[in-house]
């Protein structure tokens, strides 16, 4: 019975990967097809440079791409739930499960933001990064579904880890947007935006959005760290011990605190703020990749 659920989970993950791949192609198709080369009659010598965008032609592709993204999200959600049922615990007991849930949170953050802002231009990037995360997870990080080790048997596993995963998903989304800001900024400083990038929001909007995401999720990250400390107190006999994972969580917290101060108090905007945001986000990624795989300390369980 348990293995049935585990197989179901694996199949759902594979299906989700297939759907995310299709979504990636739909996004690519949309971006590429919208670029229209002007007719010969109106074209002059510089016609190649004056490509225009016509999204009316590709609206259907964009809708399909987003629909596929939602489908992928639902399949992944099913996969994560099935994994949880097979292992009889919340599906974040090791790095494989954490990656699945992280990818789910990342997609969820994107789809939630999509309801308010037209971020479909990000879809290309989101779908490929989710695909890569899932691919890495299922090939390199895969572990058979297994019960939890005693140290992880706690209600705090649910609270601490879900707070960390959601924060991580939103931090990364904010990073993608800050990255897009820097890329578009350098493109604009060299002249006009390229045709495909014209639909993307203006720099001001990107700057604000990236900040809002961080401001929204910073209290949650603070909570994740504190919840971790409370759990550590009851499991390891100290609430803070400078374990590598704790240290990097602290560094991430300090970096985002500095980012918020730089923006709110000193009034940093644009490029400098975006770089600081990228730096803060990279400390989170470092914590996830380096400390889990090569690090030592108390946050290493069941292989990975």
């Amino acid at each position: 019975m348990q293995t049935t659920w585990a197989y179901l989970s694996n199949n759902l993950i594979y299906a989700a990967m297939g759907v995310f791949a299709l979504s990636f192609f739909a996004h690519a198709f949309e971006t590429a097809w919208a670029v229209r080369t002007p007719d010969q009659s109106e074209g002059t010598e510089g016609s190649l440079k004056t490509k225009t965008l016509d999204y009316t032609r590709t609206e259907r592709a964009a809708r399909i791409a987003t629909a596929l993204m939602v489908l992928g999200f639902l399949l992944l959600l099913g996969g994560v739930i099935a994994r949880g049922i097979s292992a009889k615990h919340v599906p974040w007991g090791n790095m494989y499960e954490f990656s699945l849930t992280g990818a789910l949170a990342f997609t969820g953050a994107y789809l939630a933001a999509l309801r308010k802002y037209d971020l479909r231009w990000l879809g290309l990037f989101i779908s490929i990064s989710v695909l890569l995360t899932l691919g890495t997870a299922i090939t390199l990080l895969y572990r058979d579904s297994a019960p939890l080790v005693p140290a992880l048997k706690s209600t705090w596993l649910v609270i601490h880890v879900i707070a960390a995963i959601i924060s991580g998903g939103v931090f990364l989304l904010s990073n993608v947007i800050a990255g897009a800001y820097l890329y578009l900024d350098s493109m604009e400083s060299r002249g006009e935006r390229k045709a495909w990038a014209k639909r993307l929001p203006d720099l001001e909007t990107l700057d604000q959005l990236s900040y809002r995401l961080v401001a929204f999720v910073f209290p949650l990250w603070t909570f994740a760290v504190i919840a971790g400390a409370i759990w550590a107190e009851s499991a390891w006999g100290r609430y803070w011990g400078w374990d590598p994972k704790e240290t990097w969580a602290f560094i991430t917290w300090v970096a985002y605190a500095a980012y918020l101060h730089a923006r709110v108090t000193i009034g940093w905007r644009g490029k400098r703020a975006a770089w600081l945001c990228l730096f803060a986000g990279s400390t989170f990624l470092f914590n996830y990749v380096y400390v889990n795989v090569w690090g030592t300390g108390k946050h290493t369980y069941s292989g990975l």
Partner: protein
Amino acid sequence: MSQEVEIPELGTAGLLRFAWRQLTSMRTALILLMLLGLAAIPGSLIPQRSQNPMAVRQYYLDSPELARWIERLSGFTVYSSPWFSAIYILLFISLIGCVLPRTFEHFKSMRAQPPATPRNLSRMESFQEFSGQGSELEIAKEWFKKNRFRVRAEGQSVSAEKGYLRETGNLLFHLSLILILLGVSIGSLFGMRGEAIINKGERFISVPTSYDTLSFGKLANEESLQPFIIEVIDFVAKYDLLTNAPQDYTATVRVTSAGEKTSTIKTLKVNSPLTFGNTRVYLQANGYSPIVTVRDSTGAVALQGPVPFLPQDGNLRSIGAIKVPDADPQVGFVASFLPTYARDGANGGISVFPEALDPKLLFSIWKGDLGLDSGKPQSVYRMDTSKMERIALDSLKPGETFSYPEGSITFEAFTPWINLQIVDDPGKSYALYGAIAAILGLLASLFGRRRRIWIRITTTGVVEVAGLAKNGAPGLPAEIEKFVAHLRREI
């Protein structure tokens, strides 16, 4: 030909004032905050003595020269190093210098009236005007009161302000950080931490001599030790049959608190420690103690009882030393205990499962000087064989005896041991309250919106409405729309 540069006289007081202003400036605080983050990095890359003393020792063996340099820079004790402390102490001084004046100011402004209505409202945000009926000011005042604005009425105008919670939250957040630091300091000054290994069936009495390791904070001593007695009645470890991973550790203990005559039976698990006042007792590790009887050549018992062995891997292959100083000559056994014995071509005897399904005791017997009287501290799990001579090599199953010219050893049975970690941290509740207040403050400061709304009736009877949102807080235009709609509806 040197040119004298004219330096304006500052004086000591002036210099101090200058230093204080520099330290409490936002830019300095931000730099210190970033420095704190950067300074935390080396401690996650270099092994730390407080977490992994074995790894530090290994570092010394692998590259002694580098290790000495790292030691000089406090690299093995980063988080208690002078430079790390300097950064966070400066940061907190800067924070206090920043937050305290602001707290007083905020307190004053909360009790003061909102600022007067500006003369020219048309320059402010969301400016609107319409011809009025005359009673708008009264309706506006009521609406402001109902929506919990602070109101200042002056002549033909009303000025209203709301959203002090933002600054309150901001200050609360920063003050709570000080509380957290205070909690951490109290814990490290007045706290205590110790460990003890107890075999199943044995009693642990919390007095200094019972602890295997015991350390106190700078301002704590043995008198602050919480007295209690723990008897380990049973210990059960469950493992997954396929992956060998541990599934559950449960210790059943009989607990007697200080001053109590009766004892109670309690369950001790990994995530649920026992509590005695401020002191908590954690189940930290477990292993096996082989129970042996060692006799001398006359057949008299020289040593009898359980000897804790130290687990080396997930399948609890454990190593230990059985030292018999009372035998003549002294004898000792360098031994390993294998809970589920198997043979491996490369490593010899190994264990293939952590539960004791087919236990075996492997040992070599040594005679000579154990070196226990030399005064040099020795590990209980290892034996210094430099002044000893090996006389035999064998393995036993429970119940079996091996005889050698100087005596015999009987592997009677085995029993589990548990390692208790005993911690007293009197500062942790402060840190917890600080953390909770910090989150509440953070939420208020990030989502609170401070804004002002003004209304004035000009001499010509025109109603003017405008507002101001601080820190670009969103939602003001919508609020003013609602306010104006209300005014018009009521009239």
